[in-house]
C-alpha cells in the first residue's frame, strides 16, 4: 500500500480539522526526520500524511518573560534565535545541519531515546505544551506529557501546537556526551537549571536523556540539591543520586552500566559548571 494522500494544511484549524476527520490513519509529519526514514524503509506505510510545514506553527517570540516556540519551528531556527542560550546550545547538539534544518522542536518531543536532546532541555526549563484539537485546547507541563516508552498524554486528535518556555531565573548548563564530536547519538545528555542565592540552591531542575524511556527528571538529585550549598560535596551527592535513580538501557552506543557511570560524571560536570 502506498501513500494515497498528502495534506498540507494552511492553518492550525485546518490541521486539527483534518486530524479529527481522518483519525489515526493520518500520519502527522513535522520535519519528517523521524517519520521519513521509517516510510522509506517500509517500516511505516501510512495511507495519508499531513505535513505541518505550512500550518503557521513555525515561529519564535519573546512574550513577557517567556519564549514561545511554534511546534514546527526547526532546530536551526532555534540555534539562530538569541533568547535562551541553553536552548540554542541544545538545538545545536542535535544531528548535523541537514537534520537541524529539517527537524523540529515539536518532533523532538516524539524522538525515542537516545533521541530527545532538545526535549531534555525543555524539561529542565519547565516548559509548558499547548495541545490543540478540534475540541479545543489545553496546556500541559512537559513533565506530564511523557507516559512511557514512545507513549505520551497526547490524544489521537490532538496536535502539539506550541511550547512555552519561561526564561530561566537561574543558571543553566547543558552537556551532551556522545561517542563522536557531532551528529552523534547520546550516551547521556544532562540539562540543569539551578536558582541560586549566593551558594545556596533555592530551586533545582535536573533532566537527563538517553537514560530512561524518555527524557526524565532526576527528582531525587533535585531534592538533594534544593536547600543545600552548592559545593563539591553536594555536587558529588547529587551526581551519585542521579546515577542511582536513572533507568539506563543498553544499545550499540553504550551499555547500561556505562550510561549510569556517565550520568554521575556529566551531572557532576554540569553542576560544577554552574557553581563556577
Amino acid at each position, binding site marked *: 500500500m*502506498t501513500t494515497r494522500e498528502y495534506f498540507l494544511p494552511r492553518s492550525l484549524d485546518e490541521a486539527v480539522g483534518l486530524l479529527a476527520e481522518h483519525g489515526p490513519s493520518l500520519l502527522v509529519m513535522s520535519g519528517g526526520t523521524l517519520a521519513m526514514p521509517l516510510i522509506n524503509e517500509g517500516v511505516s506505510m501510512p495511507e495519508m500524511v499531513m505535513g505541518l510545514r505550512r500550518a503557521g506553527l513555525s515561529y519564535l517570540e519573546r512574550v513577557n518573560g517567556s519564549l514561545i516556540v511554534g511546534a514546527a519551528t526547526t532546530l536551526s531556527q532555534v540555534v539562530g534565535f538569541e533568547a535562551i542560550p541553553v536552548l540554542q546550545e541544545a538545538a545545536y547538539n542535535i544531528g548535523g545541519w541537514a537534520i537541524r534544518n529539517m527537524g523540529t522542536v515539536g518532533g523532538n518531543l516524539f524522538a525515542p531515546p537516545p533521541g530527545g536532546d532538545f526535549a531534555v532541555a525543555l524539561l529542565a526549563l519547565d516548559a509548558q505544551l499547548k495541545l490543540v484539537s478540534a475540541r479545543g485546547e489545553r496546556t500541559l507541563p512537559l513533565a506530564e506529557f511523557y507516559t512511557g516508552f514512545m507513549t505520551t498524554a497526547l490524544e489521537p486528535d490532538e496536535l502539539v501546537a506550541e511550547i512555552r518556555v519561561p526564561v530561566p531565573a537561574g543558571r543553566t548548563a547543558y552537556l551532551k556526551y556522545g*561517542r563522536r564530536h557531532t551528529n552523534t547519538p547520546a550516551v547521556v545528555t544532562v540539562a540543569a537549571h539551578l536558582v541560586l542565592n549566593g551558594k545556596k540552591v533555592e530551586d533545582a531542575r535536573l533532566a537527563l536523556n538517553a537514560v530512561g524511556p524518555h527524557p526524565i527528571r532526576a527528582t531525587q538529585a533535585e531534592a538533594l540539591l534544593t536547600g543545600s550549598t552548592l559545593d563539591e560535596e553536594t555536587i558529588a551527592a547529587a551526581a551519585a543520586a542521579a546515577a542511582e535513580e536513572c533507568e539506563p538501557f543498553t*544499545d*550499540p552506543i553504550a551499555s547500561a552500566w556505562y550510561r549510569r*557511570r556517565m550520568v554521575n560524571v556529566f551531572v557532576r560536570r554540569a553542576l560544577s559548571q554552574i557553581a563556577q
Partner: protein
Amino acid sequence: MNQTRYVGRSLPRLDAAAKVTGEALFPGDLSMPDMAHMKVLFAHRPHARILRIDTSQAEALPGVLAVLTAKDVPVNSYGIAEFDQPVLCGEVVRFVGDRVALVVAETPEIARQACDLIEVEYEDLPVITGPEEALAPDAPLLHPEKGSNVLATFHVRKGDIEEGFAQADVIVEETYTMGMQEHAYLQPDAGLAWVDEDGYLVVKTGGQWAHDDRRQIAHSLDLPEDRIRVIYTYVGGAFGGREDVTVQVILALAAWKLRRPVKIVWSREETTIGHHKRHPMRIRHRWGATREGRIVAQETEILADAGAYASTSSYVVASTVLLSTGPYEVPNLWLDARAVYTNNIPCGAFRGFGVPQAMFAAEAHMARLADALGMDPVELRMRNGLEENSLTGTMAEIPPGLSVRETLEAAARRMGWELVDGEWRRPQIRREVRPGVVRGIGIASGWKNVGYTLGYPEQATVTVELHGEAEVERGVVRLATSEVGQGTHTTIAQMAAEALKLPLERIEIVYTDTAQTHSAGSVSASRMAFMAGNALLGAAREAYKAWDDEDRPAVATYTYRTPPTEPLDPETGHGKGAFAFAYLAQAVEVEVDTETGKVEVKRIVAAHDVGKAINPEIVEGQIEGGAIQALGWATLENFVMQDGEVLTPDLSTYLIPTVLDIPPDFETLILENPLPLGPWGATGVGEMGFLSIAPAIIDAVHDATGVWFNAIPLTPEKVLDRLKGEH
C-alpha cells in the same frame, strides 16, 4: 631525472566539477523508460533450513512481474574466489544477508509489499557465532561438503624456534583482537540491467572489477562472457567493499528472465547486511629478544572469522601471514593461521586486505617488547628493521625499494623523537592536559605488498590509439579502472598525458566498460596507479612504434605483467609472496579522559615512501583518508553481531568518524625514493594510510595512562573499565 609535464603535479580532480554540480551519475541515478523495480527477500536469520517457499500471494499482487527463487537460477552459485555462495538460497541460509527470493514489480513499493507476502517456512539450525565455536569438535558444519569449518590454513616455519627462544633474554606473549569493520561507503549498492537491441545483457552499476563481475554473471546465468556487458558509472566509495559482487548477478538474472530493464537500489540496511566486512581476528604473538633488543624468535597464531562464505578470505589471511612480522628481520619464526566459517556476515577485502590486522598485532607487540626491554620503541624498530639482504618471514628476498628506517625516522623526528648519544628517545611531554585528561604519544611502522600476491596472476591491459596525419593530434586510451572517489581518473589522465606526450586536453579516456576495454584487474591492493602506469608506458611505446610504421590511427594493446610471485608452501610457508612493498610510519598524539575512557586523537604525523607522487594532493588525500578510516576502526567503529544478528545495520548505530573527529593537526610527510619497478618510480598508496594508526594509538594510550590495551575498538567503556581496574 627527466623533466615531467604532468607527473608530479597536483592538478585539480577531473571528476570534481561533475560531482559538486550533481552532473555525475551514480548507480542509483540510472533510469530507463519502462524499467521495473526489484527487491530482495533476505533471510534475516543466521542459520536455517528452508522447508517451504510459497510465492503465490506475492505473485498475485497486481503490479508484480515476477518472483524468482532458487529454481530460477541456471547455475545457482557465485563468488570471487570460489563459486560457493548461492545466488538465491533454496535449501539452507547461512547468514542474515543470504538471499531467498527476488521480486520484480512495476514500482519499488509494490516490490516491497510483495516481499512481505512471500511465505518462507524455516527450521532454525544451531548458530555458530564465532571461530572458537566453529572449531569445537562437535560444531555443526556450515559447508558439510568441505568436511570442516576451516576454510584456509597456513603454516610458516623459518629457522629453529626453540633455538631462537633459547637465545632470548626477554619473552613477551600477548593476544590481540580486532573487531569487524563495515566499509560504510557513501553510495548504497544499486544498478540497472537490461537486454539491448542486439541481445546483449547489460549491467550498469558500480564496482571495483567489471571484468570479474562479468565472469561471475556468466557463470550463474550459464551464458558466454561475450554476451554480457558490464559498465561502471561513478562509484560512491568502495574501500574493497565492492570487490565481491552485490547486486550484479541478481540484476542480470532478473533482466535476462524478464527481458525488461530492471533497477535496484538497496537501502543502507540492505547494503550493510548485503556485502562482506573486514575480518575480525585474534592474533597471539610470543616474541623473544636479546637484552640488546635483537628479535630472535616469533611464535604466532592467527584466527580469522571468515563468516558464512569464502569471499577472498584465503587471500586476505595469506596477506596477514605474509606481513605478520612487521618490517623486521625475524630469524626464527613459527606461525599457524586459520580462517574459519561462522554464521556471521562473510568477510573479505577491505583497505589493507588483512594487513592492518597484521600491523596492529605486530606493531602493538613491538611496543610491548620495547617496554619489557626498557628500550625506546623507535630504537627497537631501528635495530630490527629489514636490511637489503634480509629474508622475509616466508624466506623471500626483499625487493628493491626498502625504506623502513627512512619513514620511521621522518615520522619520529617530526613527533619530537631525538637521537641522544646514538639512541632514539621519546620526547618528554607534560602528561596532564587538564584535570582528568592525560596526553600521550605513540608511533608504529608498517609495510604492505603492492598488487596481488601469492602467485595470483598480476597484469593489466590497456589500449592506446594515436590519431592524426602528419602529427599526433589526439590520443584515445581504453582502460578499465573505476573512480571510487580515490582520484584514479585524474592520476591515470596525468600518466596518460605523460606517456602519450600529449596535452591532457587532447586525450580521451574510455573507462570501465567490458565491451570497450580489456581487464586491468581490480581497483584494489594499492595497485591501479602502479599497474595502469606501467601498462600505459608500454602501450604508448608500442603505439608510437606503430605510428612510425605509418599506421593511422596507430593502435596498440599492451599487457603489463609484474615479476611473478608464488603461493606459500603448504608445509613451510616459504615463497616469494610479493613483488614489491611500500613502507611507512605513523605517529599520533592522543588525549584520554580518565573519567569517561574516551580516547581522542589530536595529532597525526604520517610518513610514507610513495616512490613518486603522481599527484601529490591525491596521494595526501589517500593517506589522510586511510588514516581516518583506521582511526575509526581503532576507536569508534563497533560493528555488533550478536548470535548472528546485526545490531548496527545503519549509520545511527554504527558510528564512523565525521569531519569533526579528524585531528586538527594532521601532517603527511611524502618521501620519494623511486621504486625501480614503478611507473616514474611510483609505488602504491591506496591502502597504506590505514596501516599503522591503530597500533600507534595503543602505544600513545599506554604513554598517557600506563595501561596497555590489546583489543580494538577502544570504546570508551572498555577503556574506562580497564583504567579503573588497574588503578
